[in-house]
């Protein structure tokens, strides 16, 4: 590569990074402006998770077993909430912009689509981790779960690695608001529900029918749930058996997500759907 081409390339990289920071900055502004909605939604999420975790308290087993069951439910509830945030934010790449009417300005701006989507994904991960942490701490404090030797760094690291796959799948769910001007985030809810039902969100994968167990191998949530439960309950470190499938799924899902989104964008441009609704 010639020196001029290299400088040009560096210039493009710099512009893309500024664009990526812009997406994150905008989302921070929006969280600030809608902070009371976020507080209300946080309270709802805590209450919802409590309804699940309290089931453990009603099971007729020893206190130690109750504690273990409550922790398993809690990890399931936290991952459910975390995935909800990831899919909601990445899907809103289009839905929110369409609703506000800014979609045309954003999609005609000279920032590449992968950078735009990664900006949304990166913010979703940061915001999701903050919310998941608050949810975890609030439920532990409210129910009084005893955690003897939790390995939080390992749990967070695994959540981070799994998030690569979650973002890739989120990009695919963002297709729906791109091609449907009226509907928004339903595909995100479907992906979230389908993924968690096969991944053992509140139960071991082994209780599922065999065909569902087979599907669970392709879900990143399976490995995230298994590894995070081991880290929180047993203080386990990062297990390669959980990490490599997540890396493989992430390596496939991100390019696939970008391809699906680009295809959807071309369809929207062909059929005049890249515009505000109403």
């Amino acid at each position, binding site marked *: 590569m010639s020196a001029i081409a290299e400088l040009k390339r560096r210039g493009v990289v710099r512009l893309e990074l500024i664009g990526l*920071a812009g997406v994150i900055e905008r989302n921070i502004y929006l969280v600030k402006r809608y902070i009371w909605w976020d507080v209300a939604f946080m309270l709802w999420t805590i209450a919802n998770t409590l309804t699940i975790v309290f089931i453990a308290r009603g099971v007729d087993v020893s206190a130690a077993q109750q504690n273990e069951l409550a922790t398993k439910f809690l990890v399931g509830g936290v991952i459910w909430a975390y995935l909800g945030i990831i899919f909601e934010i990445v899907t809103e790449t289009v839905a929110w912009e369409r609703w506000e*009417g800014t979609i045309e300005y954003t999609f005609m701006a000279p920032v590449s689509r992968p950078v735009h989507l990664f900006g949304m994904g990166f913010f979703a991960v940061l915001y999701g981790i903050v919310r998941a942490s608050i949810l975890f701490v609030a439920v532990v404090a409210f129910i009084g779960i005893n955690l003897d030797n939790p390995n939080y760094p390992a749990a967070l690291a695994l959540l981070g690695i799994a998030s690569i796959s979650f973002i890739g799948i989120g990009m695919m769910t963002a297709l729906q608001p791109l091609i449907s001007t009226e509907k928004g985030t339903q595909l995100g809810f479907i992906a979230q529900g389908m993924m968690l039902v096969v991944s053992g969100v509140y139960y071991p994968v082994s209780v599922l029918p065999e065909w569902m167990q087979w599907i669970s191998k392709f879900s990143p949530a399976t490995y995230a749930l298994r590894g995070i439960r081991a880290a929180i309950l047993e203080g386990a470190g990062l297990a390669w058996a959980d990490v490599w499938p997540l890396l493989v799924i992430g390596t496939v899902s991100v390019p696939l997500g970008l391809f699906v989104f680009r295809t959807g964008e071309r369809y929207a441009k062909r059929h005049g759907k890249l515009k505000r609704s109403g």
Partner: protein
Amino acid sequence: MTVSSVEARSAPAVEVRDLRKEFVRRSRGRRRRVAALKGLTFTIERGETVAILGQNGSGKSTLVRLLSTLLLDDGGTARVFGYDVARETRPVRRLVNRVSVEASFFKKMSAAENLGYAARFYGMTPKQTRSEIPRILERVGFPADRRNEAMEHLSRGMQQKVALARALLTSPVLLLLDEPTTGLDPRSKQEVQTFIREIQDAHDSTILLCTHDMDEAESLADRVGLLDRGELLFLEPVEQVKRRFGVERLEEAFFAATGRSFEDEANEEDKDREVFA
């Protein structure tokens, strides 16, 4: 892409050849193809201001959206400073910005926050926008003490000024104005038009103004075109249009060219085209 690299290219600002766009309309289980643009051909030279007149559904917004890389054509070509809008979107996007009839902002965010967000996509850092946003807002006559107020609390006229500021902040070489004064009160309308004149005088921008306001077109544009039901009937200096049709006013030229008055009701096909505008 910079203005200097644009200067190095000798192509016209906009070059459109036989540009066609159709949309599929579904009604009562039937699919129908509606032609929004029927083989448009025209050129806009650098630094020129061209106004395209047309009723609702005439294809003005479709043309603007094609030039903004938001639509893919069904035939023909459109080039901006020599770059194909369908295949070379990145350089085109760096050169073009627009102001549309709706101001279109994140309503809970302030003018300064909205402008900052838009500027990042064009490579402007927070350090640059800290000084540039107040300067550009002052230029469009936006009160400094309101720049941190949520957009939803601003009047339509104020919002449209912020929209102009957003477009100018990125120093576009081609500015697409899609009915920028529609729905504004007379004072706001006049302020926006005055500012467009200032852009013409102070910048080296090329302007494509789509409007259905004949007076606006006449007072701002070097050449005026008439887009009617997807066809460009003429694109000439105003005086030449009047001479050609032997009329005093542009409204009369519209009637002479189309056989209809500008206020005539749209037919079914016009309404279908409007859906996609």
